[in-house]
């Protein structure tokens, strides 16, 4: 179905046709989604993007993303020359608004250069409004996870038990890549699971629903929205409070501790020994 849709939209001329098509797509996908996804579809609401948003989003997309992702987000052909340097972006049909908000909002997209994986940029090149427009456009290409509603991100009311549950779920599902405290870790061939210290609640949520790069998708069946919120609560709680033990040395575990013991511990003690030795002679 999506194939026909994108084939059609590739030839679209009349603006009204676009709107019509999109409305059709939206109802279809919305309906399909509601039918297919079991319960708490609650995290997928507010597809309230207006047609103008989608149209604006498409313009932005064509200007900034199409070189790699294709003019209809169908995925690019390898381009040997020109901007993009032969990088192909994957198809964005069905990745959902959440993926765009995550990728562009963390500065991963538009991809500046080819590497093992996209790296968050220092400066985000788009306003949140523009990001929302592109997200609306990509969401219009096929059903996918939406940008989560505020109620799933508001962790202020979480109880201790919920945070404890979050720590448990994080340890079982995420720690093998992101480390026990979200300090990050290496994956194969130069890829890495990044540190999660400075990621916003929304982007954490979206990372789970969209599964960027080598990260698996944790949909609402694997980890329910409430549990996602608990994970976010856990991460924010340990990252906002000082560690009870003192400097945590980056939460990197025994490697940084060993280095510290050698450099500071043995270093200081040998320094004292040399000093005492000098005193006597």
């Amino acid at each position, binding site marked *: 179905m999506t194939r026909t849709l994108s084939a059609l939209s590739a030839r679209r001329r009349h603006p009204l046709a676009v709107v019509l098509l999109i409305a059709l797509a939206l109802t279809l996908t919305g309906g399909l989604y509601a039918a297919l996804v079991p319960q708490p579809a609650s995290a997928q609401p507010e597809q309230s993007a207006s047609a103008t948003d989608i149209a604006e989003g498409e313009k932005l997309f064509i200007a900034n993303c199409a070189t790699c992702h294709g003019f209809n987000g169908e995925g690019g052909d390898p381009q040997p020359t020109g901007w993009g340097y032969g990088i192909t972006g994957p198809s964005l049909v069905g990745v959902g608004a959440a993926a765009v908000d995550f990728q562009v909002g963390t500065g991963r997209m538009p991809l500046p250069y080819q590497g093992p994986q996209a790296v968050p940029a220092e400066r985000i090149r788009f306003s949140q409004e523009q990001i929302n427009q592109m997200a609306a456009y990509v969401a219009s290409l096929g059903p996918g996870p939406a940008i989560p509603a505020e109620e799933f991100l508001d962790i202020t009311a979480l109880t201790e038990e919920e945070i404890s549950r979050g720590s448990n779920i994080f340890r079982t599902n995420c720690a093998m890549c992101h480390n*026990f405290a979200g300090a990050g870790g290496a994956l194969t061939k130069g890829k890495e699971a990044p540190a999660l210290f400075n990621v916003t609640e929304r982007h954490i949520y979206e990372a789970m629903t969209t599964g960027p790069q080598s990260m698996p998708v944790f949909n609402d069946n694997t980890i329910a929205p409430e549990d996602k919120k608990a994970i976010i609560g856990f991460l924010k709680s340990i990252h906002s409070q000082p560690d009870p033990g003192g400097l945590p040395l980056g939460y990197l575990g025994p490697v*940084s501790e060993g280095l510290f013991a050698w450099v500071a511990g043995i270093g200081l003690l040998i320094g004292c020994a040399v000093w005492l030795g000098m005193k*006597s002679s």
Partner: protein
Amino acid sequence: MSTTASRPASRQDKAAAGVANFADDSVGASKIVNGFARKVFPDHWSFMLGEISLWTFVILLLTGTFLTFFYVPSMGEIPYEGVYAPLHGQIVSEAYASSLAISFDVRGGLIIRQIHHWAALIFVASTVVHMFRVFFTGAFRKPREINWVIGALLAILAVFEGFTGYSLPDDLLSGTGIRIAQAIMLAVPVVGTYLSFFFFGGEFPGHVLIPRFYVIHILLLPAIMLALIAAHMFLLVLHKHTQFPGPGRTNDNVVGFPLFPVYMAKMGGFFFIVFGVIALISAFVGINPIWAYGPYDPSPVTAGSQPDWYMGWLDGAVRLTPGWWEFTLWGFTFSMNIFIPTTVIILVVMAVLVAYPWIEQIATGDYREHHLLDRPRNQPTRTGLGVMALTFYVILLISGGNDIIAHMLNLSINDLTRGLRLLLFVLPPIAFWVTKRICLGLQRRDREKALHGRETGRIVRLPHGEFIEVHAPLDEYERWMLVQHESQRPLELQPAAGANPDTLFGKVQHALSRFYFDDRVEPVTPAELEAAHHHHGHGGEHAAIDPSEKGSAKTTNSLTTQG
């Protein structure tokens, strides 16, 4: 201030040689006390490295005892009800719950835990540094071989003591470590499965491991180590401490401070410095945040699961070993990819470590007692071997943290591992060769210095137009440091020494001896010194200029020469 005491082995007139004679074959109890108090201890900062180990060990005993008051060695499961909110209600072992209680509920518990763990890391580190000081200075030579062996046993026991301690809190990381220990047992051919069942009292993880590790950690190993340390200290006193060569210091005496009171006061002071430094670190820097690791559960693991640093080299060895070393034969799996880089490597390293004093004895054919230390440069082959071993060890240690390094430096872990594999075989021989060359170079420079004096950097023009650099002669003491060591040659150049080269042992011995001493720089002989002095009198090319000759030489600057 310094005292001189004679060696028991001294053939000199003992009465004349002075105080503190310790005749080991004829000591009565009173004599021990008396002798001990009047011992002298030579002074050098590197002789305090062993003391750092000693004091950290004492700190470990003290803080460890405190921890035993509150720790519960049980794998029984209970819901966590303590004060650390992010773990509320989770099912944890009693061992883990009590470790958290020590951290958060017991007054001063957290700082004691942190002191205990930092002291453990520093204990093993200082032991290794101490061992290398003993190695590079040749302090393991006769009569101290047994003390070297005791030390080597202590080093390996320290590693096991550390590992069992690391396992006790039963957090996610220590559980992962125990799992790997089980893998190491399982990988032992034939008996692996039995070993594992024996240790774990059945399937992994079972219910007996923590109580067993507890007994090993707080009773068995500390008792053995304490006994070995006592023996180590006893032998130290018996043999007296070695000393670096220097004016008045011979193979037959010890120059230093009297043990009592000067050295005792100094040692006591040093204990407080060591305790102070470790307490300071523990107050500000966290270690082993078990609350953040969470309780052990066999299914999750965390990225960056590493052992404490002293086990890191074994972890590194496993990480570098390719997986295809594992094979199946007659329906059995032989996990050589685990067995060789763990069990086999430990055994080989232990064997070489323990045997080294005798290996060198064979190479030198020298069975005499040595109480004067070597300057590392005067033993180029030994120093080279030491640096080679160190390089090998450090590469394995780095490999143990390959994922953290890849993550921090944005490298590909695959490339890094391949690179480290290559380095493991390429770097150590290079390190050996380079170190040996550097030592030989330094020896040559010492020779030059002893014969022709120190370069002053002043250029002088002689009457016939030649330019020479002025060399200032050394004083007696300095020169003695440079010429005091013995010449060491391959056994074939010393007809009287070594075993008969026609026997198998003789062949090995001669080959070893060639390996050690074929490349060498002969120390300056008295005859050479004499000749050099004579030569200088006539103002040769590299000669030190005598003040008397100054008039005939045009100095290019207006400084005067000091004779």
